[in-house]
């Protein structure tokens, strides 16, 4: 698949801590096509943010280190790029939006300063041109009175407005890939949907691929073409959004779907929850990492780590020994998934 935009192969990112080596990302591989909208779903600590930070090469040694693997972006291995070339990629070809807009902007510089800094850096334009472009990008994210807002400081903005600024900053240089790490988690529910709509519309306009990282299935449901589910540093299931929602094949995905609250129907049954907590990624169990929490586990599961393999349906990948025999039905997932907002 040489036409893929991003190709991650056997990526392992480890952190050394006092307690031991944390295998935050442990051998994941995936590909992303140009313009594709991919949801990366998992509990906290599943390695989804570390995956994003690894792609941006923002893992700081000596604490964290990309141990093995390749990250090919437009045919080039990012891990072998020099610092200067990597700086061209960051912000220029791959932009990133972070979880907490309250702390992601530098408090002592104005919005205008910070926007124009990016634009000048990657587009090599003059200050006055950069200013025009900054105003334009603020208008794109529907910030009223964009010109006047340039001299405002981040603390004068609400959380939602700041995240709009972050989106403006991320998209101002027309990147080919936008990584959004839980972009709406810190916002209140009413703004979440607006921000997601805005971000994905702008990305679609620019034909920018999106890697949307979230623990919230409701968010990916409405916005993503494909979904990969991560658990304890590995990918356990991959498929189109439809397939994942209607025919989950991994017990973990099934559990996640069960624990999703829905607003469009009465709760006839209790919300299903996955028992236990994710394992510490320091002492990973031998065999399947989900085994201790899995109600379908068999002997083999405690001995052999299941690989990601084609599942029962076309294009779907799943890492479960019993994927072929299990018939996991989702409870009450209706056909209409647009614009839903879940807990």
């Amino acid at each position: 698949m040489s036409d893929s935009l991003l190709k991650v192969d056997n990526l392992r990112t480890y952190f050394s801590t006092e307690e031991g080596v944390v295998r935050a990302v442990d051998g994941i591989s995936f590909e992303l096509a140009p313009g594709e909208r991919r949801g990366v779903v998992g509990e906290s600590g599943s390695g989804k943010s570390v995956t994003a930070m690894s792609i941006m090469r923002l893992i700081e040694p000596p604490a964290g280190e990309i141990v093995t693997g390749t990250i090919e972006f437009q045919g080039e291995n990012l891990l072998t790029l020099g610092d200067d070339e990597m700086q061209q990629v960051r912000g220029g070809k791959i932009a990133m939006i972070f979880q907490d807009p309250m702390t992601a902007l530098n408090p002592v510089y104005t919005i205008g300063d910070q926007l124009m800094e990016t634009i000048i850096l990657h587009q090599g334009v003059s200050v006055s041109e950069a200013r025009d472009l900054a105003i334009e990008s603020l208008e794109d994210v529907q910030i009223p009175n964009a010109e006047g807002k340039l001299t405002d400081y981040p603390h004068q903005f609400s959380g939602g407005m700041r995240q709009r600024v972050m989106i403006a900053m991320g998209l101002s240089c027309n990147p080919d890939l936008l990584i959004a790490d839980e972009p709406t988690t810190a916002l209140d529910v009413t703004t979440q949907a607006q921000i997601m709509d805005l971000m994905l519309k702008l990305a679609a306009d620019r034909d920018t691929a999106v890697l949307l990282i979230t623990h919230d299935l409701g968010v990916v449901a409405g916005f993503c073409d494909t979904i990969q589910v991560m658990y304890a540093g590995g990918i356990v299931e991959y498929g189109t959004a439809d397939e994942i929602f209607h025919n989950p094949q991994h017990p973990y995905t099934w559990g996640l779907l069960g624990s999703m609250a829905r607003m469009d129907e009465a709760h006839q049954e209790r919300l299903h929850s996955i028992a236990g907590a994710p394992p510490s990624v320091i002492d990973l169990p031998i065999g399947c990492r989900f085994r201790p929490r899995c109600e379908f586990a068999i002997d083999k599961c405690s001995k052999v780590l299941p690989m990601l393999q084609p599942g029962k349906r076309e294009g779907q990948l799943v890492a479960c020994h019993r994927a072929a025999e299990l018939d996991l039905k989702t409870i009450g997932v209706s056909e209409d998934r647009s614009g839903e907002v879940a807990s």
Partner: protein
Amino acid sequence: MLAYITRRLVYGLVTLLALSVIVFSLLQMTGGGPLDRLKLNPRMGPYIKQLTELWGLDQPAWRQYFTWLKNYTTIEEFGLQNVLPLLAIAGAAGVTFLLIKFVKRQSKGLVLVGIWSLALYIAIANTTIKFNWGTSFSGSGDVWDLVWSRAGATFRLGLTALFLALIIGVPLGIYQAVRQYSFFDQLGTIGAFIAFSTPIFIIGIGLQIVLALYLEKWTGVKLFYVTGMNDPGYSGMNTIERLVDTLQHLILPAVSIALISLAGYARFQRASMLEVLHSDYLRTAKAKGLPRRKVIVKHALRNAMIPIVTLVSLDLAFMIGGAIITESIFGWPGIGRLYIKAITEIDYPVVMAVVMIIGLGLIIMNIVADILYGVLDPRVRYD
């Protein structure tokens, strides 16, 4: 903002009054009086009673206090040498008005602080003013003249020490943070701990003995002087000789005051820089594709250096204490040594004058630090 400054000034005034009451009452508790020493001199005998009445020492303590307070705040002489003071104040007021009215940027605060400092400096330099601070009990003459003749020496020492501590301590802490866990960082941390734990008088005497006395004894070169501010033959020297002579006298006492503060600044700056280096907005700056140098210089330094402003203002009280000790070790003719001499002799007009100056200095510096903090950090609001 103006309301905030006014309120702070009022609190400061209350603190100053409390300070004066406390120190004055303490001085009243001594068994003897300020004239005890004079009484030892048989020739002073006939004058003791006269002096007691003249200085009001026969009055009850509370009356003595109010007399002191009244005199202390009374202006004895006041005159403008020319119109510059009025012009400077009026100009500063005008610029303030224009800036507040028409400029939106936060940095106008920095401009204002600068303009007002300059205006006040011009105003003070072109004004003759003298308060009625009384006469020294131990025969050192008029207290106002006495104190201000010594203040220059203390300013010279204190400002040099502050300058040294800042230009060495802050970059040291930043460098340590950027190279966290490196050998240099660990060496710096241990060094800062040792300097931080060494009392100032040990540093002072140590420097004096090793770098001034023994160095001269062993090498025959006189690099530093042990005592005083200038050589007796200072007036006959040319400019270069004067500069060298001044530095030879200044460096050791300034370093002994600076060293502990320097260690404190380095430790504080390291911690504050580390916090910024791990902040979300620095990650944003990196994710934008900024080069590492620019990330540190533009996005980290400014944020990391804001808190040091507060530390410096808090440290000033400590430096004043350090100056008192250092001045008595190095025979530096500043107000610290004057204070020690006056307190030994219970020369209370001098003691009170010096204590009040120190108290006032601390209050003003704290207010200035708060304002500067607000200017540097746009998030701070005064209310």
